[in-house]
């Protein structure tokens, strides 16, 4: 099989992993030898027509797999064409793509061949070859195999910037049903170990020496949305437990999308992209805007987020008694809850209002989304009046209902 054919098969198999982040790791460069650099912010080198960025060479080491996860194109019972890269092939592809400035580094995942330990050992060998033999300073993300031995996980963290372990599904019961070889408890144990090892790697020893850095860009995970019946509230609760329990940098939500040779156990509907988008928005609210799952859930009757309006607006519409807010006096936490105000807008407001009272036009100039915010704020020369409490406020934001077709 040609290298090009292998690349086609093993990148096609890798596209269901949403993560492509290459940010947040330590600063490194190649001025003292080797190749590559990482400088904090990640770089998206290309975008495909699915709107996703390409930052890393995202491939599977192999798509042979002994597991039988119903949602996965590579499950043992699928008839998909199989391929396997050698260590050298992955290393060469990574370095040659990197030299041409196509990518920030490698995101390596794999089907499970022979056993979790054998697979993980091969993946670690690839990362070690890049780092040790080639002095590669770019970004490496390894998808770890939860049932692999802890020693392999420890070694992976020495070479990788980020480790990730997929939780796959928001509820234990659905994972046991759809992925009979996976165990929710070992997935969580592996995440717990990564957190503890990372914390230990940041503590200086009594001699003041710092241990080798361990997965400096942290760990992340991915949850498939729409393959089981979990509600949005259940999904967000799971995410919140993962963030607090294991210090995850990101939880990725991946709308279940049709795969070639799909299992009969799953619905082959259009991927719920809007639902995925709303979950990301809610996730942001939890991480950067001080919202708790319970607050978001209270504005999501029936347990699912409103698809027509974003979750912050949905929360504000359900809590109109808190508004309108005096932009010139409100504290940061309250400003963050105004629909249309992002974290940057709020920082600008706090900085600017030390120089004088802000007016409506000032907010427009600073990039605030006043179309949404105007109903929820008060400024000299602007009060929303009855707008805040008007019955049709939601309708002003929600997209118009689709016209029914007569046939």
């Amino acid at each position, binding site marked *: 099989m040609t*290298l090009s054919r292998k*690349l*086609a098969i093993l990148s096609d198999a*890798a*596209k*269901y992993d949403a993560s492509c982040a290459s940010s947040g790791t330590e600063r490194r*460069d*190649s001025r003292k*030898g080797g*190749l590559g*650099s990482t*400088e904090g912010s990640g*770089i998206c080198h*290309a*975008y*495909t*027509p*699915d*709107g996703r960025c*390409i930052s890393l*060479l995202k*491939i599977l080491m192999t798509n042979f797999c*002994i597991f*039988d996860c119903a949602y996965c194109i590579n499950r*043992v*019972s*699928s*008839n998909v064409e199989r391929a396997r890269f050698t260590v050298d092939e992955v290393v060469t*592809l990574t370095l*040659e*793509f990197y030299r*041409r*400035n*196509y990518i920030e580094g490698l995101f390596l995942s794999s089907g499970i061949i022979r056993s979790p330990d054998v697979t993980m050992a091969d993946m670690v060998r690839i990362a070690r070859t890049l780092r040790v033999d080639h002095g590669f300073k770019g970004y490496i993300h390894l998808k770890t195999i939860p049932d692999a031995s802890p020693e392999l996980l420890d070694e992976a963290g020495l070479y990788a910037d980020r480790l990730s372990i997929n939780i796959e599904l928001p509820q*234990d019961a659905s994972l046991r049903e759809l992925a*009979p*070889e996976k165990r929710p*408890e070992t997935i*969580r144990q592996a995440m*717990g170990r990564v*957190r503890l090892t990372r914390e230990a790697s940041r503590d200086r020893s009594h001699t003041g020496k710092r241990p080798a850095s361990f997965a400096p860009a942290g760990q992340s995970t991915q949850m498939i949305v729409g393959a089981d019946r979990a509600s949005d509230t259940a999904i967000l609760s799971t995410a*919140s*437990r993962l963030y*607090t*329990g294991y210090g995850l940098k990101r939880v990725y939500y991946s709308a279940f999308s*049709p795969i*070639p*040779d*799909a299992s*009969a156990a799953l619905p*082959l509907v259009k991927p719920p992209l809007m639902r995925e988008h709303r979950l990301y928005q809610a996730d942001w609210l939890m991480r950067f805007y001080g919202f708790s*799952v319970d607050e978001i859930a209270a504005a999501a009757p029936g347990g699912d987020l409103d698809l027509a309006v974003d979750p912050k607006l949905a929360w504000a519409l359900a809590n109109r008694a808190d508004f309108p807010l005096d932009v010139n006096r409100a504290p940061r936490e309250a400003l963050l809850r105004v629909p249309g105000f992002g974290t940057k807008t709020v920082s600008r407001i706090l*900085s600017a209002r*030390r*120089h*004088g009272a*802000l007016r409506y036009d*000032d907010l427009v*100039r*600073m990039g605030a989304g006043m179309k949404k915010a105007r109903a929820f704020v008060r400024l000299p020369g602007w009060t929303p009046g009855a707008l805040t409490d008007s019955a049709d406020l939601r309708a002003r934001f929600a997209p118009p209902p689709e016209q029914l077709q007569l046939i």
Partner: protein
Amino acid sequence: MQVVVLPATGWREAWRDAARRLAGAGVPPGEVAWQTGAGLFASDPLPPAGAVTVPRAFVDLADTVLCHRDPERFALLYAVLWRLRGDRGLLENPADPLVARLNGLARAVRRDSHKMRAFVRFREVPAAVPAPLSGDGSLDCGGDAPRRRFAAWFEPDHLIVARTAPFFARRFADMDWTILTPDERADFRDGVLTQGPGAPRPDLPPDASEALWATYFTNIFNPARIKLAAMRSEMPRKYWKNLPEAREIPAMLADAERRVGVMRSAQATVAPVRAAAISERYRADMPKAPDRIDSLADACRAAAHCTRCDLHCHATQTVWGEGPADAALMIVGEQPGDHEDLSGRPFVGPAGGVLDEAMAAAGVARDRVWLTNAVKHFKFTPRGKRRLHQSPDRGEIDACRWWLDLERRFIQPRLIMALGGTAAYALTGSKTGLGRRRGTVEETAAGPVMLSWHPSYILRLPDAGAAAEARAQLTEDLAQAARLLA
């Protein structure tokens, strides 16, 4: 009116120098006309250099905005510099119209520079001609293998090559490269970065890696989730002509719907014959709870699979007890905390530290005690960035007593210490407050149980005096337990 003509190259430095002199001499913005290139007028002689101090933030802003193509940038920057003399905090006011305008220009430059980092595409070009004979007639081999050479053509919106080239020098230090743009160029040779004037689009030789890159680009794309607007906003069309992979986009889009249709209409296929055997073999080897529990080890393995209450869905793992199987003393806490949950061992977090100190003070060796909890899974609620402990309810304690009873049965301790109300309830069945019971030994059907404070309770006491007293009482109780067992 003071006319300042800035040269075609080196205009950044020239602007800085002129602005410093003019501001030092007190020339207001309305009296300065900024021009670039060989204009119709020559520069008027500038005033002598004077001392002008500006905030660091202005230096950064000016460096960035000077890369913008907007011809007004010189005047706008000078206007801000002028106002900074009376208002040092001006730049911290993003609502000021002039500051907002300059921030907008700076953002455009930063974005353009970021896109250059992203969208420059190198092609490999033949390596440099073999090193020439050096002065003394010997062949200069330079030691290592010859450096590989790469070149790229890029068309940025603004004049950003100078500010962006050092990024490529840090990243691609082990190769020689050239980036050409219509206005500027950067060359990196043998570790030295040089800059020069622009050039017309060169004819770069084909590079075999581009075909592999196109293969990757077309196959990583998911045809079931087309989001064109997202792609165009991050990778605007103006960049496409210099991106080899962009040539693939029309064909990818044209074929997407057909591919999704095929996936959707395909009938489920018959699994390969070997699949069932592989699954069966793997599943047979997966750890599972033993059918019978005849030993402490069996109980430990069985507990790892416990689903007797709902806590197992949220906690990381079952935290089983630890210590010698023939321990005379068994200490029972409430439930694992954050650290215990992650590491799978009892009493290793902050509360464990309090207990360790008390045991050391009382002369009780930790490795001679069986340490465990009344409830084996961590119960918590997420709050902010942490998991807050929640007390287990009666149902959870009752469900978990099954495991506690097994530990007692296999270890047969001569004395059990219950730390805190939960353990006291689990072991004695009484919920009566610990206040009056602490320090006493209660007889139960399964043997004597001594009651004491839970170390977490001691940590939570806000009053330092009360905490010290409770600590002393815990130590005293441990010492008494040791005496009873002596």
